């Protein structure tokens, strides 16, 4: 057991004196990861009730999800909600990423005094309590008949995704040498061409990360959807939330499993992109 006497810090703490910290940290990490995963076995249960471990296995809840439109007067049309969510999330990328990237580019190049004023404004959608943003948008959209429309959802979700896009692209541009664009322009390239051909290829991984995060932000968003979505355009998270408030439908375990797969897939892609850092 000599390894217990190994030094583990600059202050000569031995491993055995710090064993509690290791155990505590492992338990905490376990509790961070595992609870979300219980929904996976649950989703394959045959029972109406959420028992763990399930006594019998079946795919009925997946069937319920994928063929919800077949159910006459079904409580939820899960498929329609999923399509709305995907549509809105993809459109959010196309609104939030260009606007966020432009702003990040402008911010990096402006004087420190200007950026000091602009930065808090830019991250304000993240700072104002989301419920306030949601009811504000609801009030605003009522006037323009945008409640219950895909456009309204895209606008709302883009607003929430913008600060994240800005932060990601901004930090990529901060590490990028803008003089390269100056060189291109001195050689006769226009401003836009210099950006497209010199800067963009070098920050493309950050732009892709920002797009994935914008997608996920929109896909997971609940509060704005609760107020702004409606009628035929419910989103998947909104339907899930409303269903959860009323009953514990095991179909939600099936949908949750699918959502976990999607988000961990995206996380892996973003992590790989991070390792594949944009070269400067």
């Amino acid at each position: 057991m000599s390894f217990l006497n190994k030094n583990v810090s600059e202050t000569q703490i031995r491993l055995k004196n710090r064993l509690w910290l290791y155990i505590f940290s492992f338990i905490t990490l376990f509790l961070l990861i595992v609870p979300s995963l219980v929904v996976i076995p649950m989703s394959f249960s045959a029972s109406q009730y959420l028992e763990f471990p399930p006594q019998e296995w079946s795919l009925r809840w997946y069937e319920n999800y994928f063929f919800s439109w077949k159910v006459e007067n079904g409580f939820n049309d899960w498929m329609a909600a999923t399509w709305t969510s995907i549509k809105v999330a993809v459109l959010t990328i196309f609104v939030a990423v260009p606007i966020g990237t432009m702003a990040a580019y402008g911010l990096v190049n402006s004087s420190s005094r200007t950026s000091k004023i602009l930065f808090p404004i830019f991250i304000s959608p993240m700072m104002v309590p989301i419920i306030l943003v949601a009811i504000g948008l609801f009030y605003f959209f009522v006037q323009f008949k945008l409640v219950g429309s895909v456009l309204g959802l895209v606008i709302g979700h883009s607003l929430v995704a913008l600060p994240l896009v800005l932060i990601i692209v901004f930090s990529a541009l901060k590490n990028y040498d803008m003089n390269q664009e100056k060189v291109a322009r001195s050689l006769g390239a226009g401003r836009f061409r210099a950006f497209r051909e010199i800067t963009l290829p070098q920050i493309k991984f950050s732009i892709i990360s920002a797009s994935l995060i914008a997608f996920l932000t929109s896909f997971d968003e609940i509060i704005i959807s609760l107020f702004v979505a409606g009628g035929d355009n419910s989103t998947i998270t909104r339907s899930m939330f409303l269903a959860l408030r009323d009953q514990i439908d095991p179909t939600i375990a099936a949908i949750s499993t699918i959502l976990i797969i999607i988000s961990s897939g995206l996380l892996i892609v973003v992590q790989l992109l991070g390792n594949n850092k944009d070269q400067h």
Partner: protein
Amino acid sequence: MSSTSDHLNQDGLKKLAARENLTFLGLTLPYLLMVAFLIVIPVGWLFYLSFIGRDGTFSFENYERMITSRSYMRIFITTFKISILTTIICTLIGYPLAYFMSQLSRKWANICMVGVLIPFWTSLLVRTYAWLVLLQKKGLLNNIALDLGLISEPIKIVHNTTGTLIGMVHIMLPFLILPLYANMRAIDKDCLKAASSLGATPTRAFWTVFFPLSLPGLFAGLLIVFVLCLGFYVTPAILGGGRVIMAAMKISSNIELYFSWGAASALGVVLLVVTAIILYIASKLVSLDQFGNK
């Protein structure tokens, strides 16, 4: 002669620089317009509505109700109680974990980081649902406790404050750990070596050197957690089972059930002001663009 041409050139350059700056500002315009139309104007409108009474004239009745009504008082107390407890529990759990990670080699720390990031990326709703499943009367936790003989009959751990706290701590923990860990990583390890070479015991070196240096990250993390808790809606709505009513839920029910925009707006304004004050304090303690650049 040459000095005048220098001057001319300077003027030209200045003009060029001014035009460049204008172009860069122009690029931020769509973003600024979105914030103006979708945040400033709607929130400004809500601010105005909060001063309109039931009869449609200017009045403070929406704010008066908050002070005099017991149900509002209860909501404020619940909101602060849940937020403070969540922040404290997150600190007690998150600080040792962040410290542990900061002591590991980069490689191992990154592996642990995945453990912190997985819940961060998993849908909030999925995680809340998972806790609902785990904590219910016939859930896994009760079953294990029953099998081990710790309890004789299932106890109620969900649809109340306990369940809400468990769910919120799980969701907020990454928000505390990320800035705290970044801060701890940046602490110069030579300071600790110096302390111990001067005779400080490990405990003393930790409390007099490491802990004070980690405070900016800790403050940043716990203020973020606290502010996010104040406006929380989904988790208390599901895990609280209607017994834990926080400010955001009251705002929503005011509108959905009672169409009472004035009352909802007033509560929203209070929430916004409290949040703004806390964030202002935070920006004085730690520079806000620290988050922007990380």
